[in-house]
């Protein structure tokens, strides 16, 4: 900083306190609004998908509107079709949804992994799903390709 005496050092009146108080009020209001939204579960819409289990608990509210649905691809159900693939996805228990997907599945797509399918149920009460997109939701687990050397956290190799 310069210490030159020719600088203008005449006193200026400070900014009124009122303005900064208003800032705090606005900030506090924002915090309250966000806290209320969080506590009331109003940020549920930030969920990217519904799980198959959630769908089974509340099937009626979904109807046939477009949703993203997550489930584990059941082994032995994957069939490639001319348009894409058909397979079954399972929730965390035994809930099942059959999926008819149109379009090329991603390269990692296979049985035994979790996927997110985008589309809608074929009717308001059915559990068969028509998907126009498949996304692979890969796990956060890293296991060497050569099995036996390293095992997963639950002692199994996927």
């Amino acid at each position, binding site marked *: *900083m*310069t210490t*030159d005496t*020719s*600088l203008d050092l005449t006193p200026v009146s400070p900014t009124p306190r009122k303005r900064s108080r208003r800032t705090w009020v606005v900030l506090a209001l924002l915090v309250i609004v966000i806290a209320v939204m969080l506590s009331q579960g109003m*940020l549920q819409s*930030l*969920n*990217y*998908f*519904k*799980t198959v289990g959630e769908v089974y608990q509340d099937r009626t509210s979904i109807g046939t509107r477009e949703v993203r649905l*997550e489930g584990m691809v059941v082994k032995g159900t994957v069939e490639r079709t001319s348009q894409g693939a058909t397979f079954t996805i399972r929730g965390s228990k035994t809930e099942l949804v059959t999926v008819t997907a149109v379009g090329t*599945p*991603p*390269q*990692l*797509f296979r049985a035994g*992994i979790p996927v*997110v399918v985008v589309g809608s149920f074929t009717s308001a009460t059915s559990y068969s799903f028509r998907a126009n*997109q*498949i*996304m*692979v*939701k*890969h*796990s*956060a*687990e*890293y*296991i*060497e*390709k*050569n*099995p036996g*050397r*390293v095992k*997963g*956290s639950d002692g199994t*190799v*996927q």
Partner: protein
Amino acid sequence: MKQLTRRALGPLALASSVATFVMGYFITPPDKVQGELARLVYIHPAQAWVALYLSFGAATIASALYLWPRTRSMVADRVAASAVEVSTLFIGLTLLTGSIWGRPTWGVWWVWDARLTSTAVLGVLMLGYLALRRANDDPQVRAKRSAVFAILTAVNIPIIHFSVMWWTTLHQGATVFTENRHLKIHGSMAWTLLLSFIAFSLDFAWMVRARYRIADREAGQRDVELDAALMARRTESAS
């Protein structure tokens, strides 16, 4: 000793980065599901770590130190500015490598899930911070405003961190900082992951130091120029 650590930072950052590259590219095995794609785990998480926690954490602490009653230290302000600038680069790299990783694994370049969206919002806020620093030339006013802005932006950091636990996201959950403290990566892959975190952290430290030096000299130059301009005006009025 201090001189030694100063001199060692650059070579250490370079050596650890090279070691991460060799380990990640040649030595570690491919992953069971992702194959060779899993090698991105030695780049992307470490970049996100630097962008979110290390550099933005440093910027937040420095901003708080600046605002701490009667501190008003320009050193803290310059550290905050340098850290945010480097953080912006790293958040850009995080989004870029994440997108490159997402296309072959998820099947999409981008999704608006909670993790990706909150990270993108942070990137925009950081650009806002850098724009704010250019909005006013008075060093004290600029420092105060940007410090307040940085602290407000820091609210987003825990949101990004917990987004994969609070909401369902396409982005995977934690591998290292898991809820039940159970590591989901093992052997040479785990060690290389750790190495990548060290390497990118050192890179960050080296870059912030370089940026800080530039900011320091710029501020010095500013004073020199101001003095010169004042002197010019004074000689003008005298003549």
